[in-house]
């Protein structure tokens, strides 16, 4: 299908700008990313080199994976705050189970609790219609409790990080992070799901207009259940990768990435109200946030200020987005 003119008479400039922004959110995003990199290079000349780029990508990938889960959920107008816990559980369990089991077995055991969290979320949101935010917050608290209990049972056995995860997390091949081996297929799959599958269509349709989807014969709970399980599975995979990168399994490993994952999706043009967004935008959003974090670190901005900034970004982008869609 071709992209054609939207109307015969050109609408006023402001409106055209808004349409452009909502049609091609990637363009301003990439411009912003380049600008940030330039500013960074100005503040500390020479920092931007091949090693820095590889490093940035390496740290952006876990965030992008988590934000991928967030993007999928946000397409339906939801939010998943349990991704941090699901990721941490997978990370912690794989690190402790690898002591006794083969890596493949440990990974399988590690992903199971994540799926359970997703399943419970799906039931709560899809069938009981609890607000996703509250539901996922609750399951995440329960998850942390379970993890604490689990920790006491394995406290003596120590931890071990499977070589394959360490290789994926930290390794470089010809200057490229090995994590791309995992990330590129996953990202391709997510984009494929969003664009070319019936399930992806339904995500957009439900987020856009649940009533219309219902009238077209869509059963809400089915979609939501599968969605939240997918989201948690993705978070689990991210946890495996992240523990390979950090190599220190703690009970709050992935928690600090939850807010940035929401921010990355929102910056990437995914609407928190649902119905609009794409994973490509989110990937750029994750890169922007990673660069921004470096920038703030160089500026010696404290953690608190960073959180304020992230919160303000989420609010501002959402409010601005509301203005764009209201004026059609």
């Amino acid at each position, binding site marked *: 299908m071709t992209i054609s003119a939207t109307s015969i008479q050109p609408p006023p400039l402001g409106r055209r700008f808004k349409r452009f922004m909502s049609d091609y959110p990637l363009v301003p995003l990439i411009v912003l990313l380049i600008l940030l990199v330039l500013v960074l290079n100005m503040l500390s000349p020479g920092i931007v080199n091949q090693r820095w780029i590889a490093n940035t990508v390496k740290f952006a990938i876990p965030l992008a994976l988590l934000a991928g889960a967030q993007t999928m959920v946000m397409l339906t107008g939801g939010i998943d705050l349990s991704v941090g816990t699901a990721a941490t559980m997978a990370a912690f369990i794989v690190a402790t189970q690898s002591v006794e089991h083969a890596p493949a077995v440990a990974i399988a055991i590690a992903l199971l609790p994540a799926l359970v969290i997703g399943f419970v979320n799906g039931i709560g949101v899809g069938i009981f219609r609890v607000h996703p935010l509250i539901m996922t917050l609750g399951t995440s608290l329960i998850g942390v409790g379970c993890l604490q209990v689990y920790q006491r049972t394995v406290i003596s056995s120590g931890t071990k990080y499977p070589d394959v995860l360490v290789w994926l997390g930290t390794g470089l091949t010809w200057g490229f992070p090995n994590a791309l081996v995992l990330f590129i297929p996953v990202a391709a799959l997510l984009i494929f799901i969003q664009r070319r599958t*019936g399930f992806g269509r339904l995500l957009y349709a439900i987020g856009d207009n649940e009533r*219309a989807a219902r009238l077209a014969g869509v059963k809400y709970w089915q979609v939501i259940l599968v969605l939240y399980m997918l989201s948690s599975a993705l978070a689990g995979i991210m946890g495996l990768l992240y523990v390979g990168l950090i190599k220190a399994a703690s009970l709050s490993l992935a928690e600090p990435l939850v807010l940035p994952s929401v921010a990355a999706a929102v910056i990437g043009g995914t609407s928190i109200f649902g119905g609009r967004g794409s994973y490509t935008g989110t990937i750029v959003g994750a890169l922007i946030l990673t660069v921004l974090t470096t920038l703030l670190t160089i500026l010696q901005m404290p953690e608190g200020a960073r959180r304020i900034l992230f919160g303000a970004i989420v609010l501002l982008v959402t409010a601005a987005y509301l203005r764009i869609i209201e004026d059609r």
Partner: protein
Amino acid sequence: MTIEPLLDATGVAKNYGAVAALKNASLSVLPGEVHALMGANGAGKSTLVKILTGAITANAGRIMVRGKAHEVRSPADARRAGLVSVYQEPSLIPDLDVFSNLRLTQTPVEPFREWVRELGVPDLDLRETARDVPLAIQRVLDLARALAIEPDILLLDEMTAALPANLAERVLDVVRRQSKTGRSVIFISHRFVEISALCDRATVLRDGETVGVVDIEPGVEERIVELMLGAKVEKARKTLRAVNESSPPPDGTTRIAVRNLRFGTKLQDVSFELKNGEVAGVVALEGQGQDELFAALAGSIKPSGGAIEVDGQAVKFSHPVDAVQAGIAYVPGDRSEALAMKQSVRENIALPFSAAFRNWGPISRRREGAKVQSAIERLQIDTRAQREVQRLSGGNQQKVTIARWIAADARTILCFDPTRGIDVRTKQEIYKLLRQLADQGKSILFYTSELEEIELVCDRAIVIFGGRVVDILPVEIADEPALTRAAYGLPRDAKADVGILANVQSDKVAT
């Protein structure tokens, strides 16, 4: 005679985007009169009411109360200007008790109590939560609350609609007496009986304009109907059956049978049959139960009684998907209810394809494209702005909602006012399309608020009033005046007012 009007609104206009809901409405109410505000569906009554009560602000026009210009920006403003309204739906806060509701609106309690007694509710407990008060009583309380404030102008919107006969009688009685004290009442009603019994004058709206002010006197119903229809009476008679002649009669097998369908107070008793190859029109004034009828057939609500049969089999729909699987597609009147506005034309049309779990996998772009393309061509949808459906014109959006079900090959389409607010050319295309579909053996239930469409499209007209089927007219006699009379609950051939009033008396006894 120059009595200064209590309320004088002139040149009131209101636009929603490009759509003009009111163009040039005026309303002048004298002290001590009961003034009826009338008009067919979509004539602009409710918009005018909203403007007068401050729920929305007009784009143009002047509103004078007792000779002074008044800026009414909120219901509180309107109240200060002496204008109080009783809305169609109860406006007590459902979770507060009656007493708190009075306190919230600063209504004096004793006068309120007296009015409640006066209106025929002797044993009201002020500590009762509004939610627990029966709907009819809630409306009476709304009225009593309005009366207790002693407004100069009382605006009653379909006041008697949900009331049992004895309460309605009392209400009318109180309203009549109210006018004797020099206060005025604006009375909105679909019931001619009440209007002829109660009102002094009537203002008639048509297409957002005031087209006449008449004194109520015996036999005025015909005049009002004429005013509401305008020149259309003549036009409609001429075009009678111009389109319809070509279409063959329905083959007669029954597709859907509705038997004694009930839903709460909205649907009392609806029975009819929809045949294969037929377009059956549904005619009703606003809020007579047509919304619930369509929702029940589409599986959105569960009827509280009666039966629906599809192809002779009794069915129970618990989710719209059940109706879809039975080949029944619902095209809602509100396009924003049917479309995923931020998605493309293609995705909207293809939405039902992906609904079932087994179709969640990869989409065959070629197969889907072919189906979507043929539907687009069949409806001649202008797809230049196909990236987001919300950028299409209203007519094209409406076509998309129908195209979806043509692509999905639904056997029965329930069209709820599909031509509201769209351009003439698209309307014609939709008429033609519906006829073609019927000729292919599909069946269509078609509710419309524009009565002339019945003659153009339908084989029969089912008229609903107060949640009941009051008449089924063959298309030969379903011209606009006949339909209007039927929709207002007037008997088919009555012209004289005597007959109407007589009928009313028996009606009241019956209820």
